[in-house]
């Protein structure tokens, strides 16, 4: 049977976290100094954890691939962060936040973790405010809230359109203070290459210095991964260029189970692709759907004429526009959840109604004409001025006059390294936090909840739970990795791996492979998945892998900065992650949240969940390069909440 022990504490849902804290082991102050912790990642999760652990007295080594911890991709989050403060007095409670998150995740997340997340959400807002994060305020001087998709209350705190930036800079400031005090040693422009296991426990990492190419080893009593999500497997996504799944993947190959890899979120409102050389997709905030109406032409000829540049959006008369979300979902209209909106757009473009002149004709209109008529241009400008300006800079189109073009884009990975209640992976001493783990969002993440989770993990959960592990490590002396066999072996294997990459000496660039992979992922492991398509994807990805390892071309040197080599290392892992994603999607014979299998839909085209068979977390175990991974199931039990079907057609 299963090897998974999720270590959920005893007691009522609402008491679990307090019970845990009351009985867990702690490390005494004089011993903390003797313990080293490696934190990989400086995003909301990693940055917050590194700072908090150092404040407690542990010696922390913190790593990121950028030139500064402040540049982790959390910086790009726009919308906001949820918390159950109930400042607006509109009836929010910890339970309601918990409930919305579980329901939004389509009942595929672990109840106890989510409840704890909701519980600590309020502390995050207090902490950030104390750090000087300039959240939006009312004239009263008190904090302002706004509402976000999937909730009946206003619980989202925000800092203009830059909430992630401000929260990250808050964590970064705390981290900078600890670096200045000498409690954190910061390694910028350093990439994790492998995790080192000694006697079954995570004992350190091997890294590559991205400036010099040097391979180095670092020892620690525990290793924490806060390395973010892996949706760049699709090549085009809203993630940063360097966002990668490699750290989680190296952990997987060392024995950490990978959970729900196929659960990724496709955000409905990004700017569509414009051409073959496009490198990433830019998100347009979800809030735009509050005032914009989404449509495509009713006639195929009109759509074609628009794509060919013969007609403009404004040439299409009112009665020739198909407001398909309003048509299909009268109750929620343009405000249906992300997964539903994204799928509906794909359905229209697949049928030939797309309006953007890109290879697949992928794009739909988001029209503000009606809102401008109703509210006036001023109001719209006040609400979305920044976004409109950003849109115009990118597209050279004025959204006040012509409708915006949007299309769904890969955005977030709900899946990730499997962790127990303590955020520990299946490798003792290896922890995973933030987007890198799988824990809190089930099959779909609600807006403004990723920031909450990253900071909850980093500030308020991991600093407790890691001590329950470290309390048993106080007898383990610091060791010099140069003298430990396992470190030497790991270094050697990293070096030979990189040499192998450099040695292929083929003809095709890394980006070409990455794009090829992205193509397969988008078409077959994207918004609408089928058994046939997924099997095809697995075969194609295996072919890409073969071609990659025989025809890759990397210029430059191994012992120096080499951007192509960095990319190759990441893409090699994306290829394998992509395969596991397809495998997981194939295994899950149901539709839930972001995972939509065409075979499993209702007559009306809505997702069909199969709770009797699939109410579990799929945790995959690596069995070797030529072996199929082994599936372990963590059954999900809901005690504090009634399991229901999501319905957005009627209220």
């Amino acid at each position, binding site marked *: 049977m299963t090897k998974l022990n999720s270590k959920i504490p005893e007691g009522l849902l609402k008491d679990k976290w307090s019970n845990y804290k009351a009985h867990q082991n702690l490390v005494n102050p004089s011993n903390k100094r003797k313990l080293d912790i490696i934190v990989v990642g400086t995003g909301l999760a990693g940055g917050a954890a590194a700072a908090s652990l150092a404040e407690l007295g542990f010696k922390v080594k913190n790593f990121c691939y*950028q030139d500064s911890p402040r540049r982790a991709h959390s910086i790009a989050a726009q919308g906001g962060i949820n918390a159950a403060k109930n400042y607006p007095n509109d009836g929010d409670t910890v339970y309601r936040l918990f409930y919305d998150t579980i329901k939004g995740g389509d009942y595929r997340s672990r109840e106890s973790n989510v409840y704890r997340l909701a519980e600590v959400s309020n502390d995050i807002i207090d902490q950030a405010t104390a750090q000087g994060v300039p959240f939006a305020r009312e004239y009263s001087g008190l904090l302002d809230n706004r509402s976000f998709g999937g909730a009946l209350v206003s619980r989202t705190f925000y800092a203009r359109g830059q909430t992630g930036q401000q929260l990250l800079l808050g964590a970064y400031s705390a981290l900078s203070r600890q670096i200045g005090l000498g409690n954190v040693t910061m390694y910028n422009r350093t990439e994790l290459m492998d995790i080192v296991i000694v006697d079954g426990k995570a004992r350190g990492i091997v890294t590559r210095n991205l400036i010099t190419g040097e391979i180095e080893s670092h020892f620690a009593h525990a290793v924490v991964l806060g390395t973010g999500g892996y949706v760049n497997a699709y090549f085009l996504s809203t993630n940063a260029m360097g966002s990668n799944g490699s750290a989680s993947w190296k952990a997987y190959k060392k024995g950490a189970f990978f959970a729900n890899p196929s659960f990724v979120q496709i955000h409905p409102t990004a700017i569509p692709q414009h051409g073959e050389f496009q490198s990433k997709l830019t998100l347009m905030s979800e809030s735009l759907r509050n005032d914009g109406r989404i449509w495509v032409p009713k006639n195929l000829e009109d759509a074609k004429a628009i794509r060919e540049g013969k007609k403009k959006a404004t040439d299409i008369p009112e009665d020739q526009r198909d407001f398909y979300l309003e048509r299909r979902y009268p109750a929620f209209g343009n405000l249906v959840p992300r997964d539903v909106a994204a799928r509906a757009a794909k359905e229209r473009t697949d049928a030939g109604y797309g309006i953007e002149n890109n290879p697949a004709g992928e794009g739909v209109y988001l029209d503000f004409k009606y809102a401008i008529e109703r509210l006036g241009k001023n109001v719209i400008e006040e609400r979305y001025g920044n976004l409109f300006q950003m849109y115009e800079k990118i597209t050279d189109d004025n959204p006040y006059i012509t409708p915006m073009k949007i299309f769904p884009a890969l955005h977030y990975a709900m899946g990730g390294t499997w962790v127990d209640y303590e955020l520990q992976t299946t490798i003792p001493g290896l922890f995973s936090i933030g987007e890198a783990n799988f824990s809190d969002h089930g099959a779909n993440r609600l807006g403004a909840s990723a920031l909450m989770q990253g900071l909850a993990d980093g500030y308020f959960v991991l600093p407790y739970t890691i001590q329950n592990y470290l309390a048993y490590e106080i007898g383990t002396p610091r060791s010099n990795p140069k003298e430990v066999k396992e470190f030497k072996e790991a270094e050697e294997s990293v070096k030979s791996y990189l040499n192998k990459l450099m040695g292929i000496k083929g003809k095709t660039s890394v980006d070409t492979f990455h794009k090829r992979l992205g193509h397969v992922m988008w078409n077959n492991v994207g918004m609408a998945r089928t058994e046939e398509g997924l099997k095809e994807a697995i075969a194609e990805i295996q072919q890409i892998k073969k071609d990659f390892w025989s025809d890759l071309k990397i210029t430059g040197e191994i012992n120096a900065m080499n951007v192509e080599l960095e990319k190759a290392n990441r893409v090699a892992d994306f290829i394998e992650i992509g395969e596991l994603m397809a495998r997981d999607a194939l295994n899950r014979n149901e539709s839930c949240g972001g995972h939509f299998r065409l075979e499993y839909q209702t007559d009306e085209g809505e997702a069909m969940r199969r709770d009797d068979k699939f109410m579990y977390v799929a945790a995959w175990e690596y069995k070797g390069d030529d072996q199929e991974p082994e599936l372990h199931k963590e059954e999900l039990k809901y005690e504090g909440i009634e399991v229901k079907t999501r319905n957005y057609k009627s209220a």
Partner: protein
Amino acid sequence: MSSKTINIKLKVWRQKDATTKGKFENYELSEISTASSFLEMMDVLNEKLVGEGNEPVAFDHDCREGICGMCSLFVNGHAHGPDTLVTTCQLHMRKFKDDETITIEPWRAGGFPVIKDLMVDRNAFEKIMQAGGFVSVSTGGVPDANAIPIPKKDSDEAMDAASCIGCGACVATCKNSSAMLFVSAKVSQLALLPQGKLEASRRAKNMVAVMDELGFGNCSNTGACEMECPKGISLAHIARLNREFLVATIKE
């Protein structure tokens, strides 16, 4: 979205590493879509170079949406190129003409040594932040977020300052390579908020002391930084930094 294609000539600074002498190399690219971003154009150049068996041009970038502050580049005499309120990753090729020669240089400043090609080392900014760019609170034990009301005006102004992305364009464009705009943004943000006010003097002193050590020049108020700053950080923050610094000195 009227996109056409243009042909361009590039003059790009190439430098093997920090210690090797660099020089300009000329490249030509044809049929670049004006709808693509500047960095996508650089991607095309790099694909071409790799295809020819050469090393691609190293340049910093990550988010490609103007928020991480990682991208740099001095393009045709301007930090982040010839457009206002954008980072290089937000700059688009429609800003350039057919047959135009585009000169691309790294940030040039004593405080930002070149690492390779167009990549520079901005660690000096890290050191400045570590000297005082924070409120000295630790995790936990803080008051309720609404315990201290903050006038909306102050909070908004603090947010203006806080939107600095730490890109270094201010230093790059300043004729004196001064880092005052960057430092002032953080000092000003925290001085405006009651949480940060308590340490305002100390912060200003410590951050300026480190800034002075790291090879940045003296601000002479030309205002070029403000004009080239992708986030429009105002010189008014420098005035506040000066004020905090003078107050710190008087208090001593």
